[in-house]
């Protein structure tokens, strides 16, 4: 560190620096830490508030969903797909070999009950909502940039890097589910 001329204070001079240098560095460091700490409220205010986090679960009655049908409900402001799979769709999903998958995951790890497939309806590419019962694998097709998902919601083709996410959910009874 450069030595500043200090005609009156030579007592503070020590090897490799002096008291004033130390004070500069200490004050500067403390100032930087203070500014970083003070800026946190300004950054954190943009995160979801406790009120938003509290709204984080949704209950759905499944009784009206016929086999072969899919509905979309809203959970945390996002679409969630609930699909009542047919036997054919289930076996298609189960019989796919894991080697054919860009993001390998067995169907059994993605469902609690084989006929009910519950997924976050947000394309893992850039967040569009895929269309159900379309695409080359008869699961979903995302029109935005052309991602194809299968009947287990796994990515098969297109720019999306990952399978459609499975939200946390519990079956309250046979035909009622709580998401979140």
């Amino acid at each position, binding site marked *: 560190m450069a030595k500043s001329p200090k005609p009156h204070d030579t007592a503070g001079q020590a090897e490799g620096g002096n008291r004033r240098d130390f004070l500069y560095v200490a004050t500067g460091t403390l100032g930087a830490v203070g500014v970083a700490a003070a800026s946190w409220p300004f950054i954190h205010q943009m995160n979801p508030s406790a009120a938003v986090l509290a709204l984080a679960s949704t209950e759905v009655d499944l009784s009206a969903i016929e086999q072969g049908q899919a509905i979309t409900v809203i959970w945390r402001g996002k679409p969630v797909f609930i699909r009542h799979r047919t036997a054919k769709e289930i076996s298609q999903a189960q019989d796919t070999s894991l080697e054919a998958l860009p993001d390998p995951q067995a169907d059994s790890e993605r469902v609690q009950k084989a006929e009910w497939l519950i997924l976050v309806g947000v394309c893992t590419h850039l967040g569009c909502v895929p269309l159900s019962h379309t695409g080359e694998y008869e699961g979903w097709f995302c029109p935005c940039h*052309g991602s194809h998902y299968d009947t287990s919601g796994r990515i098969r083709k297109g720019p999306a890097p990952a399978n459609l996410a499975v939200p946390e959910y519990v079956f309250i009874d046979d035909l009622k589910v709580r998401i979140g």
Partner: protein
Amino acid sequence: MSNISAGKRALQWFDYRLPIFTFIHHSTVGYPTPKNLNYWWNFGSLAGIILVVQIVTGIVLAMHYTPHVDHAFDSVEAIMRDVNYGWLLRYIHANGASAFFAVVFIHIFRGLYFGSYKSPREVLWWLGLIILLIMMATAFMGYVLPWGQMSFWGATVITNLFSAIPLVGESITTWLWGGFAVGNATLNRFFSLHFLLPFVLVGVVFLHLWSLHKFGSNNPTGIDTRGPKDTVPFHPYYTIKDLFGVGVFLIIFSVFIFYAPNYLGHPDNYIKANPLVTPAHIVPEWYFLPFYAILRAVPDILFVDAKLAGVIAMFASILLLFALPWLDSSPVRSARFRPWYKQFFWLLVLDVVVLGVAGAKPPEGLWLVLGRLATAYYFIHFLILLPLLGRIEPTKPLPRSIGDPVLNSSPPRESETGS
């Protein structure tokens, strides 16, 4: 003593204490400007005028706009139907954004052609790029405000770009949204920032001009001005020329506002945002199309998946321009004296147009291939061709001064720059 000289004395009294009139005089009226500027030099002042138009129309729109997911769309419809002249103000603002980009793109390509980014104007060039980035953020957030389908899904796709960042991507998108999807919190903060950023732009424009006036404008020959015989005072010569350009601009602008106000927009944005249904074909506003094409063009590269690679390429396409003054190693500024660079310049223009078209088409078949080629060429131009040209291109002899035609029998001088 007459009133006039009393007024003058009052001005002098004030200027002595705060020399703002001297400052304005130096930076406009007295500013010595190269005498050979052509019409490509009109676009800077034009951009400044459009910025003022956007701020004025924006402030009055904000008097009627409601930044809430339940009311935003209706408040914009009310501006269109009920507010006195609301339709005019909104059409000026919406088309003003397009005009701003058109003018700034021309302004940037002018800089590329005449080598205006070269020493000693590198900082001036950087400030221009910062202006471009802030403009893009502003326009993106403004487009979300009417809360139509394109607003919502454009916001969703663009904010999701950040989820490509490894590890922290998800936290960043949640932080940007203030929730788990684009929603009311997002709309509110976008309104706040959309209001703020244009004023930040004013500040950066001020720095841009400050740095311009340090060395003065470049000119079509790219050689330095040598004293008063090469320059004319900005006023009245260029105030008049700029004003003429403003007239031509206003005619074209009015054609859009009054006869084709939605020509550059998307019909889907007159449908209220629906978080459950994505429109079949989402495309950004025209001024983002080349960048959008780059985003979608990149395939998986080694262990980087296509999503992340696309995002990196898109940001790199602009960030790379910050290094341009060093990538282009040729000591000659103007393409007039660079026969090879001139050809590659026009190829680059064509390349960006192809990128724009590719960005508007669904990414499949021929357009996907063209988009990829054009993306590759964009990077090749800046990273390979420019450094190479600087080394091997035979440049034409430079004139002695702006006043001297090249064909004067005087022996060619060595290049001007590189000092």
